[in-house]
């Protein structure tokens, strides 16, 4: 390939133009050359080239919007859709490191990661909604009113981690650890626990007995009660 048309020696502007043309070819199901777009991503990620980043956003914003809109069972408003687009690019910028780029080798792999950032952004939103639902079921809506940002702040996350270590220190054996983890972290029923952990428990009655013993012990523990606000 002549020096002038080698992607590595082209200006960012020319790269972006070629990338746009080749993307067009791809969309029209024609033969396309991915090296220009890949080189644009490479400069943005490996060289921290801000102009290249700007071109990446310009060229792929439509694709990211499309992925957001086509996520199954998910219909955000137009405004929320743009927030997910922002978050997807933000994740991609933060977490698609030069090391991951080296592992990727081609444009398809890079775009797979960008697509994964879209899906991850939507899933995070769903997890937060689900956590909000769990909190509301408990009456935690007084502490976290609906409409406010429900993002778990780092302090809360650390407190929960600390609480989990405290609870684990109060459990006697592997069976109790399994029942507590499966019941409250995985939120699965005793019937499902019996299926997911074959050979650990005799039957469902044993699971209920184990759970009952743990709850009684935890309800008498002053530190646990303090964490759970069950002092009254």
């Amino acid at each position: 390939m002549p020096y002038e048309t080698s992607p590595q020696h082209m200006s960012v502007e020319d790269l972006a133009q070629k990338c746009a043309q080749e993307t067009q070819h791809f969309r029209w199901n024609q033969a396309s050359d991915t090296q220009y777009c890949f080189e644009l991503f490479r400069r943005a990620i490996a060289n921290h080239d801000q102009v290249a980043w700007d071109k990446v956003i310009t060229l792929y914003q439509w694709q990211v919007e499309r992925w957001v809109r086509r996520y199954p069972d998910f219909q955000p408003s137009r405004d929320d859709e743009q927030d997910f687009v922002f978050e997807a690019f933000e994740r991609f910028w933060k977490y698609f490191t030069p090391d991951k780029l080296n592992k990727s080798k081609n444009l398809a792999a890079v775009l797979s990661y960008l697509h994964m950032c879209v899906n991850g952004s939507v899933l995070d939103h769903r997890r937060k909604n689900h956590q909000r639902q769990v909190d509301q079921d408990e009456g935690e809506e007084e502490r976290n009113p609906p409409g406010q940002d429900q993002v778990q702040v780092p302090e809360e996350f650390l407190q929960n981690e600390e609480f989990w270590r405290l609870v684990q220190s109060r459990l006697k054996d592997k069976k109790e650890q399994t029942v507590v983890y499966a019941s409250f972290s995985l939120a699965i029923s005793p019937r499902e626990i019996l299926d997911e952990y074959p050979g650990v428990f005799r039957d469902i009655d044993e699971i209920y007995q184990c759970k009952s013993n743990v709850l009684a012990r935890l309800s008498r523990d002053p530190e646990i009660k303090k964490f759970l606000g069950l002092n009254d």
Partner: protein
Amino acid sequence: MIPMNCISPPGLEDTKLLAHLDGVADHETESHLEQCKYCNEKAKALARQQNRLMTRLYRIDCPSPLELGEYRLQLLTESRMQDIKQHLNVCPHCEWEVAELTPDVSPNMFKRLWILIVGLFGRFQMMLRQLRKETREVWSPGIPALSALRGGEKGPITLVTDGIPIILDFQSSSYGQLSIHGQVAVDDYELWNGTTVELRQTDAPQRKTLLDDLGAFRFEEARPGLTQIKISDPVALIHKHQVLFWMVERKQ
């Protein structure tokens, strides 16, 4: 007032109450709970305790969606891949999410047909262009024309969203930051006066300002990087016009 004792002491065992809370109690337990306020209150106390445990512990050690995605793309270390693989054996939530994170790479029949139709139409367009000897610049809905540098050495730029032009200019300020001067290019400025403008950037608190009587706004000390500007519509108040770009560091 809560009774001090069960109607038929010593009362239901906690195992029975837990089964009742899970909706799998036997008939005898359900009948008793219909009549005994004491055991009912015990059941409610158990429910409260369980709910508070779940609030604290729900998915406490589930990997983030980002990490699950990297697991799916095999970008994690070997040991972390093994950890997550073991977790997926027991966690139905993460198992489902990993399936959701996998892009659809196998088009179905209708999608293939659509791609074929689009491809044929594209070839027809190419033939027309060759006949008319058009210039090399290719432009189609969905692939925007490449615009000027955002914040680079060139002057103001114009971005269009929902048919509304937004003119943006960037100036260097202290410590490598930029100030953003913007204006909405509309005819009826009175309508837009006082409309909220939001600025969102990575790792920075969201900021707001208002359009003035000439449709202009300003944000000081913005940082180069991924930038989103949202302007509320003065008529459809729940709708926002948005632009997304990478703000390039401007040389002094």
